[in-house]
């Protein structure tokens, strides 16, 4: 169910109308029923996979806590189950294709057939969230959950089920145990956040896609100027698409009094690559930091090991996004940029103006986005080739007239300038918030592109 679909809007109203009209004791079961329905809209039978994983992780959590000798065994069982499902659905065909290539190179034939399977929606997100639970219980950072309803909600909680933020048990589980009560300020703030997310998705992201998609779909025919502009636009498209989804998820959750983790902090205003990763998809980067990077030794080790750790983390991060080589390269570019930045910082003392730093980071991030956006690696090299063919006679595709182009730039500038303010502001004048919320919904309708374009991160 897309957040920008009529089905979701009706689901949303039906869910909340009933939620706040039934007794408090029935509200959490109702939330679980609604979450199951939300997931089943994609492919009903896949709920069974999720139920099986929930049961295994729930039991594993309890056994890890109780057992003294078999703790590690239960953790391994949980991780193997989660990773096994992830690998089977997401990476099996990718691995098999590459195996065929290797076999073919040596003159052998790969007899393993490709699987005709559909990737369960949000698999990478809820798998990582489930794994963080058993790891935290294993580490003794969180007591195993004894209530199956609460734990099921932790995995199935519909606002963040399909595209995060990837929550930690310490943050989400205690909130899920609290009774859900109607709170006026939560409703006002939640609706405001939903309006912001909706505006970012339908007005900015889906409008930018109108320009980006034809350019990247016809790279050999596109001019260098088009590719440059499409790359910059894609940077903002994916940001508004993903952060817009996150805003809606946080807003919907806020209506129930549950605060989800922030996932973005104006990433394109970062003045270093390290800072970029502390501002972009925060819940994923902290997940890799806590469960991969630090266990590998983090930065408390010799330089070559640190370099290796960074590359492993970003290789996995690329693979997490999808079973394609372009994502792997995208991850490795970011890893390399971090390594170069670190060496540069340690060996030189040059003071660079902050505006140049921000611009430099943005350009490098845009360059990496090319690999993220294309369907195959060779397309990225075509795009880069087109950029190097840039000439004064380059033209732009006839998608936006000058007024709409100005509108697009105003939207982007407005986004960069106001977003930080919106999140930091502590407006308590609810009449003003309600007015702005209504205005945002109205403007979203007036200037929105309603083409049911899927959220980009739903595919992960």
């Amino acid at each position, binding site marked *: 169910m897309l957040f920008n*679909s*009529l*089905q979701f809007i*009706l*689901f949303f*109203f*039906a*869910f*909340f*109308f*009933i939620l*706040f*009209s*039934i007794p408090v004791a029935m509200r959490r079961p109702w939330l679980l029923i609604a979450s199951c329905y939300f997931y089943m809209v994609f492919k009903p039978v896949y709920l069974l996979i999720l139920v099986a994983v929930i049961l295994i992780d729930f039991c594993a959590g309890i056994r890890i806590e109780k057992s003294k000798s078999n703790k590690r065994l239960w953790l391994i069982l949980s991780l193997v189950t989660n990773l096994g499902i992830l690998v089977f659905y997401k990476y099996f065909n990718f691995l098999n294709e590459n195996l065929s290539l290797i076999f073919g190179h040596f003159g052998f034939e790969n007899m393993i057939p490709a699987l005709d399977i559909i990737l369960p929606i949000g698999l990478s997100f809820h798998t990582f969230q489930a794994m963080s639970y058993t790891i935290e219980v294993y580490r003794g950072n969180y007591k195993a959950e004894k209530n199956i309803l609460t734990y099921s909600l932790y995995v199935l909680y519909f606002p963040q089920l399909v595209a995060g933020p990837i929550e930690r048990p310490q943050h989400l589980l205690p909130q899920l145990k609290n009774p859900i009560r109607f709170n006026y300020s939560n409703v006002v703030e939640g609706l405001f956040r939903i309006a912001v997310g909706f505006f970012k998705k339908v007005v900015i992201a889906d409008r930018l896609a109108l320009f980006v998609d034809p350019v990247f779909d016809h790279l050999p025919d596109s001019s260098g100027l088009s590719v440059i502009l499409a790359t910059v636009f894609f940077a903002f498209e994916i940001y508004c698409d993903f952060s817009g989804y996150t805003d809606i998820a946080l807003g919907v959750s806020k209506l129930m009094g549950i605060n989800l983790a922030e996932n973005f902090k104006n990433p394109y205003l970062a003045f270093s690559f390290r800072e970029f990763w502390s501002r972009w998809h925060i819940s994923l980067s902290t997940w890799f930091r806590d469960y991969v990077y630090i266990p590998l030794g983090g930065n408390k080790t010799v330089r070559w090991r640190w370099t290796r750790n960074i590359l492993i983390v970003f290789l996995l991060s690329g693979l997490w996004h999808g079973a394609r080589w372009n994502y792997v390269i995208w991850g490795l570019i970011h890893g390399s940029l971090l390594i170069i930045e670190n060496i540069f910082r340690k060996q030189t003392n040059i003071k660079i103006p902050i505006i140049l730093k921000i611009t430099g980071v943005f350009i490098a991030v845009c360059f990496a986005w090319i690999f993220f956006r294309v369907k195959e690696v060779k397309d990225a090299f075509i795009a880069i080739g087109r950029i190097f063919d840039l000439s004064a006679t380059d033209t732009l595709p006839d998608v*936006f*007239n000058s*007024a*709409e182009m100005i*509108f697009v730039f105003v939207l982007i500038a407005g986004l960069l300038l106001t977003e930080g303010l919106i999140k930091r502001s502590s407006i308590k004048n609810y009449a003003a918030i309600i007015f702005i919320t209504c205005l945002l919904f109205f403007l979203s*309708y*007036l*200037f929105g592109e309603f083409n*049911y374009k899927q959220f980009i991160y739903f595919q992960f």
Partner: protein
Amino acid sequence: MKVLFKILFFLLGCCIIVIMAVASNSAWFEKGAAYAPSPFRYGDLYLVSSMPGYKINTHIELKPPFNKQTKNVALTIIGDSYTDKFDSTHFNAGSYRFIHWNNIPDTVLPIDRTKKNIIIVSSTERYARWRFTKDQLLTFSTQIHPHADQTVVDLAAELNLQYLLTHLDWQDPFKELKTSIYLKYFDKFSPAVAKPDGTGRLYLSETTDPKNNASSFNPVNDAEIKTLRENMNKISEQLCAIGYDEVYFSIIPNAASLYKTSEIPYNHLIERLQQHPDVKFKFIDVYDSFKQEKNSVFLCNDSHWNALGRMIWLIKANELLDHK
């Protein structure tokens, strides 16, 4: 008071669930849709464009023109949205069956051996080149198979919800405002509808775009006319072989062919097909009648004909049946 609000909220939630359930089940949706206003009531072109000034009700009361019925004729029409509103009372025939082009692969041709079987193969001009290039009719059979009467209504839940909830009158001023802003500032209009040319009429963009082969202004060379005519002959022969005694073709012109002025001249597809010496069947020719008619035969906000256009076609079709 608080309890009253809770009951109200609960009932509202349940109502929404009922709407969602109706939208996700095609059988329930068919029943539910009867209570919703038709999205097409202001014309299909207004529906997709929301162009201010074109919100005019297009409802046509089509009275049956004949009292007596020729019992010895079994009439079949293969057609599209132009001819699908007719029923048996509109034709001077003993029996009548309509088959939509989309359903041809699943349809059994109704041959009644006790009657004279007449078939009219009608198509709108914009689809004629596509339909008569393919030998679609050759997939017909006279054998009855189990899925012969299956319904064609199988819309996705989202489209059903759109149908039920997004075509209400109070929404139109907002839609028109959006259209005006997009047209004035972004020079954008619904992709399905040609930008208004100030003549007080909307056109499907595919019928006016010279690059589209559905267009009245897309050039057609003589070789293609020959191929189309040969295919139509093949279709005619096939239908005769199945059991039809008489086969007629009817190409209903695009509104653009009649009213749109363009820098590129009209391709005269209909006349060139109808006047070709090698055709082995008869045409129900409405192009000339439409062209000579002083009053408009098309709706200004819809891609279809108005009551007058329909009536002209109906009279022409019935003239054939009167002589049987």
